[in-house]
């Protein structure tokens, strides 16, 4: 008979707002589409047919899907960057960029606990943990690279001024040969990211049992009472030890750092 040692009281916390969830699933969908069509563009299947070429547009459609998905991907990405400035505290851009020692410390802790699997330890965060946040930051950089290289290739196929803004790109990648190569190779980053990402989401759901997977569906996570209180305390401490609440060397009260929204 199963008996448990610790009973958790859970508090529901709304972490992912609808726009973040919408962004997430659109993003996941178009990335899968981009990887699939991109792979086919690089390695077209042997497709034998007796039909006249004029009756077919198979490869044309594959490329068309790639370009439509590419536009969605790009504007969705821009939207997420915007939301990093206006969204809730778990969507805020500060979750992604290490701006203080605490961030690095937490990252190290997560690496020890979740990657190197410290025995029976868990790291209970509310939004992204620091490591995840930082990896999403790297992922966003990859998004940027892929958009720049992609639109760099697209510039020669499009008459729209927007795509034409990217004609300079092939110059820095050693011409279109090199550009294509990098764009293609970067696909593997996305594939490997997606594998690890989906695995880790399942990992957290399984080990912590607090609705990690469904959080991207409904938006909420179920946080243990203790973890909730700890997080509350942490946020308070952060508030009171933040530079703007300390005496600044020049006696000023305003915060001079670029990383907080001090008045």
């Amino acid at each position, binding site marked *: 008979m199963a008996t*448990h*040692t610790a009973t958790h009281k859970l508090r529901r916390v709304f972490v992912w707002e609808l726009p973040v969830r919408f962004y997430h699933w659109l993003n996941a969908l178009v990335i899968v589409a981009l990887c699939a069509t991109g792979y086919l563009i*690089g390695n077209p299947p042997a497709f034998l047919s007796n039909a006249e070429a*004029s009756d077919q547009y198979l*490869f044309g459609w594959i490329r068309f899907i790639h370009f439509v998905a590419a536009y969605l991907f790009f504007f969705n990405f821009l939207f997420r960057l915007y939301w990093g400035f206006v969204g809730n505290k778990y969507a805020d851009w500060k979750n992604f960029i290490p701006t203080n020692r605490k961030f690095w410390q937490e990252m190290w802790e997560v690496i020890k606990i979740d990657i190197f699997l410290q025995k029976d330890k868990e790291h209970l965060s509310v939004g992204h943990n620091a490591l995840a946040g930082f990896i999403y930051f790297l992922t966003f950089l990859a998004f940027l690279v892929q958009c720049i290289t992609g639109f760099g290739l697209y510039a020669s196929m499009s008459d729209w001024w927007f795509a034409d803004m990217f004609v300079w790109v092939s110059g820095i990648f050693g011409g279109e040969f090199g550009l*294509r*190569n990098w764009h293609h190779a970067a696909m*593997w980053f996305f594939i490997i990211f997606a594998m*690890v990402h989906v695995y880790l989401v399942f990992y957290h759901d399984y080990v912590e049992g607090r609705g990690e997977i469904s959080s991207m569906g409904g938006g909420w996570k179920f946080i243990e009472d203790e973890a909730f209180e700890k997080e509350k305390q942490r946020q308070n401490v952060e508030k009171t030890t933040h530079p703007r609440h300390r005496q600044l060397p020049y006696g000023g009260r305003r915060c001079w750092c670029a990383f907080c929204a001090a008045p």
Partner: protein
Amino acid sequence: MTTTPTRRPTYYEEIRQKGYSRRDFMKFCSIIGAYMGLEATGVAQVANALQKNTRVPVIWLHFQECTCCSESFIRSSHPIVADILLDKISLDYTETLMAASGHQAEAAKAKTMKDYHGEYILCVEGSVPTKDDGVYCCIGGKSAIQVLEEAAEGAKAIIAWGSCACNGCVQAAHPNPTTATPIHKLVSGKPIIKVPGCPPIGEVMAGVIIHMITFGRLPELDRVGRPKAFYSKRVHDTCYRRPFYDAGLFVETFDDENAQKGYCLYKVGCKGPMTYNACGVTKWNNGTSYPIQSGHGCFGCSEENFWDNGPIYRQMANFPGFGIESNADEIGMVAAGATAVGIAAHAIATNFRKNKLISNVIAEGKDAEKEL
């Protein structure tokens, strides 16, 4: 042979002297105007310029090259091109075609450089080796670098003929033993027109020169420095096999049925999608054919470093630093496989290392179920 600065015949006069009729001349103007993409009025401008202007002195230097550019030029579709623009009379100096040789030739070149300082067009065919003080290419006792610097100094403009002069071509391919260097990296402060290709199309070469004569200035250049009139279109976008590409019908091997049917050559390595040139429009040898029409994919010969851009008969380039035969997909698949193994190992280890946590969560859930 040598020219005097006093009275040079106009192009038209030379053309007539050569025995061409006015009709031939006008035909030539329309053909070349069409290649240059001019409107009808532009053709009149060309005719006008050739009748009025005296010949622009041209010095044509040959360095590390195979002379395919000159060969291509003299096979340009209209004989006037070869007769007038590239002729022993027209060129003040060119190693391969001039009648003079030795000191006499060098003296003629020196005279042109002096008499027409700031006026002559310098055409350069070939790359310049810079390693070991340039000993790998010496002409008349001077290294190619010296020859180039001297001639460039008084040039009005420089035309870099062919991929050698534009990007080093095969001599500059890895490991580039002589440090073959394209012209634009050696000369600064002079307008340089790049006319890449291995070789460039004869009509394109003629068109570039006629443009300079007609309008007295450089043609409009793209970002890389190539004349837009000829290098603004992708071979892929002007390819007559394009419908097969869009349909997804590809040649798989050169001797399959698809090759007979004339399907797209993408999968056997056609570089048309990355290559900017006029091949699909102007074609070669009097518009007879061009590589893709003959069943071979585009080589990408007018693009930078096309020799080092991976295998000729495959689409994907090799990836630097991972051995000769590995491309991004092979490396990616290995990496993805390793990731999958890592994930599986991590998942198994998780069940041992976090056993307490996991079983507690499961038990907590089960107990709750029983309680109800």
